């Protein structure tokens, strides 16, 4: 225990020292705290009051929503870079048992003020259970749920760090997305009712159900399920952690071999291959792709309206925003020096990065466009392709500017970060605006609807070219500053 306490002391010291030493990190945490703190002050009390009223009347809808929110927040915290200094990989050279290393790993999460705020919010969210029929059991079940969310998120984070586990995780998620899409489309029930049926057996609802339960069986079954799930997740957590410590990460030879099959022509071909190879390693690529696969699977059985597909296209870009707005986030200081050594202009470096992103987005949206051609014909698919092109250009135009002015270190196999939630929100709003405008004009049947897509496409293309030139120049002038922020 003394060893764990000592490591945590230095972990805490290193974390806060790094935060103080790097202004942009401090800004990041400050803005996250403002957003989360603001939400806690202005939204949470009202939600909790409502949930408490409902629980006292035996209803669970609002409490379910609160619990879901915290589960998602825990997931988000752990898939982000925890910025810890004393990593498990380095600590394993010391005589410390795996169990102790895992304890250090778990407790190190709470160095982050964001994690502390979410932990505090999670505890506060137990308040409505005091008005429920089963206060103690409700609170206990909620704590089990948080442990479950935390353990699942950490296990997923471990799985992302080991090539073999990562492949399995991705395969499971792909199959699950397609299966979910197929299930939702084949049954006759409306979507909302189906979603309700699925949510009723999910852990957050089990917690609410325990708190309003009137019979022993209504308590025992959900509690037993939660305990069972926690035991399974606990085992998976330990096992996956052990895998990250001792499984070789060098199955890269296989990945490299697969990657080397991709070949791009021209002067920038090699650099482009490097870019798309690195971008594929960001977790952000997957939510968009899984959403597209699920919707495509739905469309296979039941034709969906073009509006659904177009909304999905907008959503995919929103999910990709952080990745697009932090073009240098995966580069190292040495990598930036290499860009300076190579006979390349700043705008050429950015252009290659943009092409890498374009290839990735094209791969994400390809199933949807193919389905559009099949279900709605080439004209409708063409409109969707134009909307996608507009969204891509507008996101890249804004993203290039942010990439050179607000770079932020990112890690492979983690979520991309654009530094601050405000930057991220501004990016997705500005980037989505032209595409949403086109859709609005199309559906409002305004007299501009025929001219709108090509003219807005030309306008965003012009904006993109201006941004590319300007950002390229900025990159040349600010390379040292960018390198410093990425170190």
């Amino acid at each position, binding site marked *: 225990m003394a060893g764990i306490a*000592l490591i945590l002391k230095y972990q805490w*010291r*290193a974390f806060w020292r790094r935060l103080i030493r790097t202004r942009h990190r401090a800004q990041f945490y400050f803005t996250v705290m403002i957003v989360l703190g603001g939400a806690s002050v202005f939204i949470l009390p009202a939600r909790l009051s409502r949930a408490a009223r409902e629980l006292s009347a035996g209803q669970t809808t609002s409490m379910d929503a609160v619990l879901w929110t915290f589960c998602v927040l825990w997931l988000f915290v752990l898939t982000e870079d925890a910025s810890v*200094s004393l990593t498990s990989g380095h600590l394993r*050279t010391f005589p410390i*048992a795996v169990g102790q290393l895992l304890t250090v790993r778990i407790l190190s999460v709470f160095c982050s003020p964001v994690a502390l705020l979410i932990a505090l919010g999670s505890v506060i969210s137990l308040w409505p259970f005091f008005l429920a029929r089963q206060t103690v059991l409700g609170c206990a079940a909620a704590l089990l749920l948080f442990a479950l969310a935390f353990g699942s998120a950490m296990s997923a984070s471990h799985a992302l760090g080991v090539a073999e586990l990562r492949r399995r995780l991705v395969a499971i998620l792909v199959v699950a997305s397609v299966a979910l899409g197929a299930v939702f489309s084949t049954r006759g029930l409306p979507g909302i009712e189906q979603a309700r049926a699925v949510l009723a057996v999910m852990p957050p609802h089990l917690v609410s159900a325990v708190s309003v339960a009137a019979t022993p069986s209504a308590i025992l079954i959900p509690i037993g399920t939660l305990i069972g799930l926690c035991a399974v997740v606990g085992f998976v957590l330990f096992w996956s952690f052990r895998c990250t410590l*001792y499984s*070789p990460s060098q*199955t890269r*030879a296989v990945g490299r071999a697969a990657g080397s099959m991709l070949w791009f022509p021209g002067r920038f071909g090699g650099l482009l291959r490097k870019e798309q190879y690195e971008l594929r390693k960001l977790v952000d690529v997957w939510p968009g792709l899984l959403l597209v696969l699920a919707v495509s699977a739905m469309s296979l059985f039941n034709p969906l309206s073009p509006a659904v597909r177009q909304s999905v296209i907008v959503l995919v870009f929103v999910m990709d925003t952080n990745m697009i707005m932090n073009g240098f986030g995966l580069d190292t200081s040495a990598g930036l020096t290499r860009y300076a050594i190579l006979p390349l202009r700043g705008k050429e470096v950015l252009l290659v990065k943009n092409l890498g992103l374009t290839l990735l987005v094209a791969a994400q949206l390809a199933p949807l466009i193919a389905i559009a051609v099949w279900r709605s014909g080439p004209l409708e698919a063409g409109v969707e392709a134009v909307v996608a092109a507009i969204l891509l250009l507008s996101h890249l135009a804004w993203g290039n500017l942010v990439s050179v002015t607000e770079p932020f270190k990112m890690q492979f196999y983690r979520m991309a970060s654009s530094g601050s939630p405000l930057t991220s929100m501004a990016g997705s709003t500005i980037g989505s605006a032209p595409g949403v405008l086109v859709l609005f004009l199309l559906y409002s049947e305004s007299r501009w609807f025929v001219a709108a897509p090509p003219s807005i496409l030309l306008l965003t293309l012009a904006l993109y070219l201006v941004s590319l030139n300007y950002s390229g120049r900025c990159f040349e002038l600010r390379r040292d500053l960018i390198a410093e922020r990425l170190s």
Partner: protein
Amino acid sequence: MDVVFSEQGIDARGVTKTFGPVTAVRHLNLQVAPGTLFGFLGPNGSGKSTTVKMLTGLLAPTSGELRVAGHRVSPENIDLKRAIGILPEDAALFHSLTIWEHLELSGPLYGLSRQETHDRAVQLLRHLELESVSGTYIDQASYGMRKKCALAMALLHNPRFLFLDEPFEGIDPGSSRNIKDLLIALAAKGVTVFVTSHILEVVERLIERFAIIIRGEVVCCHTVADIQHGGMTLEDVYFQHAGKPAVGNLAWLGSR
């Protein structure tokens, strides 16, 4: 027939490590007696660091058995980790901690008291010429300073076995000399030192025995005295096995 393992030294029997389709180390058989200064040499990517990682329990072998100081090497053998000192290839240091804090953190994890840690750290930093920069954050330290810090951490708990992966890389001549003298003194006291290096001139004056690994296979294992007796240098033996690249292939360089 059961394989008899050396109880005190380093013993590797039929060790293989594969990474997907790539075999990094193939059927490694190696015995190092206690108190030996052993050099493990080879070109880049030949499997030196992988071997060190396996010998120190940082990486599990695909097959074969390893023993160090009588301990069966496994990634979770804590007693083994207490008995050895490791200077890993990447130094494995922690950003935002100073050089001094690295030692302050390290000592108690090996069971040293605070006072013991303090006294030993002061002496080690002085010997490695890090005393004046002990307050430097590791991410602001030079490559050589980081190597020396990691070496000090490996020595702090006075291990009987030292595994040093490229200890002379990026080190200035003065410190290099100090480290060399220190390792010779340690070996004289019975400490087993396992060193990998590319700097053959330095290693030749340091080690007693060596093995050369090429493409994952140990191709020779001799004592330095043996090769010197045969009128050869370590460099001669090295190139005999590793081969010398022909400069003629690059005739286009420098020509117009």
